[in-house]
């Protein structure tokens, strides 16, 4: 395709499925093990070392899972949207696969956010579910993810499905801020944001470092997971090609 030449050379090279397959295979164990290590450190710091909250006691400790997952639910959407844009504009096969593999991981993070939020809500609000602005936005985000996944799977042709779902993901980018604004307008019952990455933080440093460690761990886990899923997705999409067949044959013998 003519328009592909606008991409820088290294992107062009990495966009080739066999190259990306090998690259992802090398990177994956590093990302996965460092994510696990950081998660262990972060959880130890958060669940054992960090001081108890003067108001919420130990119940607040769920934020060490809840907050990083909430960040990731949006971060994953951002990654999906960027990949979707590349897929729509340049029709890069790899970007289509990456966009579609971001969706289930992002949906999982969103689900964990909702579950931990509701667990946290039980002692805080006395109910498993409250229509508070953030939880409601997360719920809408989950539906957005499910729509993308559903559309991708409902269309027979894989590539056409991926591009249709990519377009939906991009529509969602316009929609998300509007949803968030409208939901906040609808219900302004929630404690304000307590963690600001840039600028003075309102929470104790003993609580902050485990939180940031967990955030790093979830990011690494996200990348490891997406790379892993993309490898499998590439094998499925490129099933007819020589490189994919030889890899499948190798694994069958091993």
């Amino acid at each position, binding site marked *: 395709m003519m328009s592909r030449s606008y991409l820088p050379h290294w992107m062009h090279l990495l966009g080739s499925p066999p190259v990306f397959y090998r690259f992802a295979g090398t990177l994956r164990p590093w990302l996965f093990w460092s994510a696990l290590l950081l998660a262990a450190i972060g959880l130890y710091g958060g669940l054992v070392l960090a001081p108890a909250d003067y108001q919420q006691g130990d119940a607040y400790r769920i934020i060490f899972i809840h907050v990083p997952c909430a960040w990731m639910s949006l971060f994953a959407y951002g990654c999906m949207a960027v990949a979707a844009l590349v897929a*729509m504009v340049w029709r890069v096969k790899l970007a289509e696969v990456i966009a579609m593999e971001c969706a289930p991981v992002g949906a999982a993070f969103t689900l964990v956010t909702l579950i931990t939020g509701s667990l946290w809500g039980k002692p805080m609000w006395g109910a498993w579910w409250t229509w508070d602005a953030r939880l409601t936005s997360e719920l*809408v*985000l989950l*539906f*957005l993810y*499910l*729509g993308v996944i*559903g*559309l991708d799977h*409902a*269309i*027979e*042709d894989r590539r*056409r*499905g991926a*591009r*249709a779902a990519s*377009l*939906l993901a*991009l*529509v*969602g980018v*316009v*929609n998300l801020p*509007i*949803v968030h*604004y*409208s*939901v906040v*307008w*609808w219900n302004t019952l929630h404690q304000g944001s307590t963690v600001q990455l840039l600028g003075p933080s309102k929470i104790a440093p003993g609580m902050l470092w485990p939180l940031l460690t967990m955030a790093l761990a979830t990011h690494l886990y996200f990348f490891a997971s997406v790379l892993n899923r993309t490898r499998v997705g590439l094998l499925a999409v490129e099933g007819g090609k020589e490189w994919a067949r030889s890899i499948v044959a190798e694994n069958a013998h091993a």
Partner: protein
Amino acid sequence: MNAPNAGAACRALLRREFTLAWRRRGEMLLPLLYAVIVATLFPFALGPDNALLARISGGVLLVTVLLAMLPSLESMFRGDLEDGSLEQLLLSPQPLPLLALVRILAHWSTTALPLVVATPLLALLLRLPSNVLPVLLVALLLATPLLALLGATLSALTAGARRSAILLSLMLLPLAVPVVIFAAGAVAAAQAGLPFLAPLSWLAAALVLALALAPFACAAALRIAIEA
């Protein structure tokens, strides 16, 4: 050669859509019937408590109209895809977003507009306070074209997909949330005697945004759908 201009093309397409709708006018009644059924079921489920009905009727009517719009949206482009008319639209020397916009407006005026017109009757059944009715109607006149624009884009995406009825609802829900919130917010504010212009203005702003963006997204979705 009589060169085609965009105005003539839009008129031709509008005429086709309205003639088709008239030929199938029985189908136009189905959403209305659906809305009447839902509005009748609510009092049976909640009991004939006039005060309770009056309090919730605004929201109930909004959701009823939204749900009644869904089935016709779902099959909006399926016929065009199956009989090859969509290909002709794509090949015509007209901008596809413009044709998509015309299609959506025609669809709105043949399916959603009758619902809005029938709303006063449904409001009567559900005992909506009469001073709230004008606000509800304005909210619906802004919300239904907005939903038609969003729904048509999603419908174009699912035109070549299996199991698309539930899928369309799933995809439309996140997009419908702000629409429902602002429309119901305006109605609730009017009912409480509070100023209701702000949510209506937000609805109008969203409608303008959708009018500008949705035809392009819809055209892109149609180009993907036709590859099937």
